[in-house]
């Protein structure tokens, strides 16, 4: 191909790890990935753009949209979709799969422990106040036994890759991880738009997610309910929730009723749904609604979305909630920082996928390091979500840094710090042609009697040049994620 101009010949990955080409050094040599790169490079930019436009139109037509409600109107938006796939080799996937399974095992053990004997607190591996003082800690869960001791049935782990291509855990999502509908729909879209690109390449299937999830949830039905007889339901806050499309997707793929709080009643501490023929028992609820809204009797009194009495049914073991109540402690940013130690404590193993190096400012050493190196660190408040209050050292003004230093001295335990991570890049179709854009990965992990990792995941890509922020609210899009068979 030397000398001849093609689609990828102007592509330059810079100093980052590239998901298609590898490290800078081994760029584009050998393996199936190189084969895919070669196929891609033969396509024309115009042809690619035409197919991208067709794919986007299809997303609208299929209504794979989230709805933004304004006072006057309801506007349907799509999550921007980039047609160039993100490819993961079988060897890399092996690490991800083992690492995710290990992590969810640890999280489930941790949650069981803190809601029972609290050994880990007694052994002072993690500060007690961080756990029991956490706003997501639910004292109602103390001593409650769950089928299979599983707390997090559906887990999403946010992974990033540094310059060497090493995977790191950036965040745990143990409450209601979302985005799996895009994993499956993106694949279907690619199968329709790029059959030629996929021909003859072994890509692991993702479309049996619903079946697997349904099976796993039936396995954790209340005691005495056979897996075959378990009635599973998906609980949504309703049609005005921006993720309603995903709730519909999940209910459809699982083949279960999609219920809202108003469709359910609790009688004799058992949960029923209102059907055309009267009340029918439900055994397992996959709820896409937060802890504090699920039962106005137990938590937020004003919740209109929940079901009165469902916590009583839950505590009696008459219904399984997935995920369990009180799992938010485990995906807290401050608790995250302790996850490597928690892993060693329960399993006596090192984490297979490590955290991003994290300095815990409530510890003297971490605080000193953070203050001394603040210009090259990202400093995050532990209690905030959605990037709020994050200081990015290299891009901050002197005034911002001084302010944060004062805050660190005053309330160190509210902060953690991490080095700025140079996320890996992936070839992406932009108005300027094919260019590198930063990407992360959220694999989905399902735990019933055993654990299964969906071979794929949500690849979120920062469409703005140079941006490290992949969130859809800030100009992020998504890609199909191919896990290769071999």
């Amino acid at each position: 191909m030397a000398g001849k101009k093609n689609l990828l010949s102007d592509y330059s990955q810079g100093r980052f790890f590239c998901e298609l080409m590898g490290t800078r050094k081994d760029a584009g040599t050998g393996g199936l990935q190189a084969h895919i790169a070669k196929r891609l490079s033969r396509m024309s930019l115009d042809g690619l753009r035409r197919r991208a436009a067709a794919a986007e139109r299809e997303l609208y037509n299929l209504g794979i949209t989230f709805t933004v409600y304004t006072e006057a109107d309801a506007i349907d938006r799509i999550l921007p979709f980039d047609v160039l796939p993100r490819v993961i080799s079988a060897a890399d996937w092996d690490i991800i799969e083992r690492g995710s399974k290990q992590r969810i095992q640890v999280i489930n053990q941790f949650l069981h422990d803190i809601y029972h004997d609290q050994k880990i607190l007694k052994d002072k591996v993690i500060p007690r106040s961080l756990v029991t003082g956490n706003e997501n800690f639910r004292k109602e869960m103390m001593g409650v036994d769950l089928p299979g001791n599983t707390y997090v049935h559906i887990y999403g782990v946010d992974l990033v890759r540094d310059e060497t291509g090493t995977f790191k855990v950036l965040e745990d999502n143990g409450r209601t991880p979302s985005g799996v509908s895009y994993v499956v729909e993106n694949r279907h879209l690619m199968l329709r738009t790029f059959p030629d690109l996929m021909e003859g390449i072994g890509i692991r299937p993702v479309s049996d997610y619903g079946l697997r999830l349904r099976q796993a949830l039936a396995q954790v039905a209340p005691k005495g309910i056979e897996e075959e007889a378990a009635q599973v339901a998906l609980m949504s806050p309703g049609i005005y929730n921006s993720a309603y499309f995903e709730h519909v997707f999940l209910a459809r793929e699982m083949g279960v009723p999609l219920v809202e709080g108003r469709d359910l009643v609790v009688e004799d501490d058992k949960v029923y749904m209102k059907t055309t023929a009267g009340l029918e028992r439900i055994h397992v609820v996959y709820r896409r609604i937060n802890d504090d809204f699920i039962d106005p009797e137990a938590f937020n009194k004003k919740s209109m979305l929940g079901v009165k009495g469902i916590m009583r049914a839950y505590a009696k073991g008459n219904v399984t909630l997935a995920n369990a109540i009180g799992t938010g402690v485990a995906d807290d940013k401050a608790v995250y920082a302790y996850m490597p130690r928690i892993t060693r404590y329960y399993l006596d193993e090192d984490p297979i996928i490590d955290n991003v190096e994290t300095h815990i400012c409530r510890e003297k050493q971490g605080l000193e390091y953070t203050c001394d190196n603040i210009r090259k660190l990202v400093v995050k408040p532990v209690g905030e979500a959605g990037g709020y209050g994050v200081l990015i050292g290299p891009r901050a003004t002197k005034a911002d840094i001084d302010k944060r230093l004062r805050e660190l001295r005053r309330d160190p335990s509210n902060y953690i710090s991490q080095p700025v991570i140079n996320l890996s890049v992936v070839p992406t179709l932009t108005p300027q042609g094919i260019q590198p854009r930063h990407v992360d990965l959220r694999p989905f992990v399902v735990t019933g009697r055993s654990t299964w990792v969906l071979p794929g995941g949500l690849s979120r890509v920062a469409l703005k040049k140079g941006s490290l922020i992949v969130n859809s609210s800030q100009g992020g899009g998504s890609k199909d994620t191919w896990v290769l068979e071999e």
Partner: protein
Amino acid sequence: MTQNWLARFADNIFWLARYMERAENLARVIDVTETHARNRSGVQDWTAILEMNTDLKRFRDTYGNPDLGSVLQFYIIDRTNPTSIASNIANARENARTIRHLISTEMWTQLNVLNTECSDLKKRDITPRRVSGVCQAVKQACQAHAGITEGTLYQDEGWCFYGIGKSIERADQTSRLIDIGYRRIMLSGYEIGDRALDPLWTTLLRSAAGYQAFRRAKPIRMRPEEVLGFLVADSAFPRSLYAALSETQYYLMRLFNYHQIGTVREALAAVDDIRAKLVSTDPGQLIKSGVHGPLDELQQELIVVTNHLRRDCFGHKS
């Protein structure tokens, strides 16, 4: 493992069907009025449609005296008017969105695309020259919806509630068409059997998509009592009141017997009564007594059926 639908979703699919049926009928009526319904001096009669839908007052409040442009706007693209085609399609789509996991992807996609097309319509798309094309496109899209539904929707109890919604709405629409068409004839100044009225009878039949079917059934001439009898009680014409309600009855029976949903009992009894009344209707007598009273009564009875369903099957309190 349950096969029964959530009460709320049965409500959604019932209304999905009704809104689609309404949109189709409205598109047909606008098209027919625009093309055929001129009075003796060749002026189109738009107040009739407004009266048929009991929209006249609401219309005047916003638009003043009806003229072609404003009526078309009101009935095709005005989203603040709940009875416009755009509103009906949007409502159908919103109901479909709620039960998207229960209907086929093909049903959903077609309706989603139709909704986008309808909400994109501008005033310039519904000029007199173009409006017939728009109405035909809407009508065909609604018929495509019916075909996709027939060919892809799983025929469980939700399908029955869909069929009930569709047929009740159809009966309601046909009764309104007869009422208003007949009124137009009465106001024309001719004697009821006069041949000069033939175009008005034809228009009435066309607005119910029944002109060709009627010609096949009664090829000789246009007798008023035969036109009425056809629209009220012909068992082979799918939009007659009798045929529509026979369909309602079929789906209710299926729910009752096959799906063992006892909660439809009262709705079923009410539909049986209406059908019995329709069978014994004498069109000649109807002409003597006037159609408005009996048709108004029928519309009230259809509301009673809907209310039975609301309370007994859809989980509404009243």
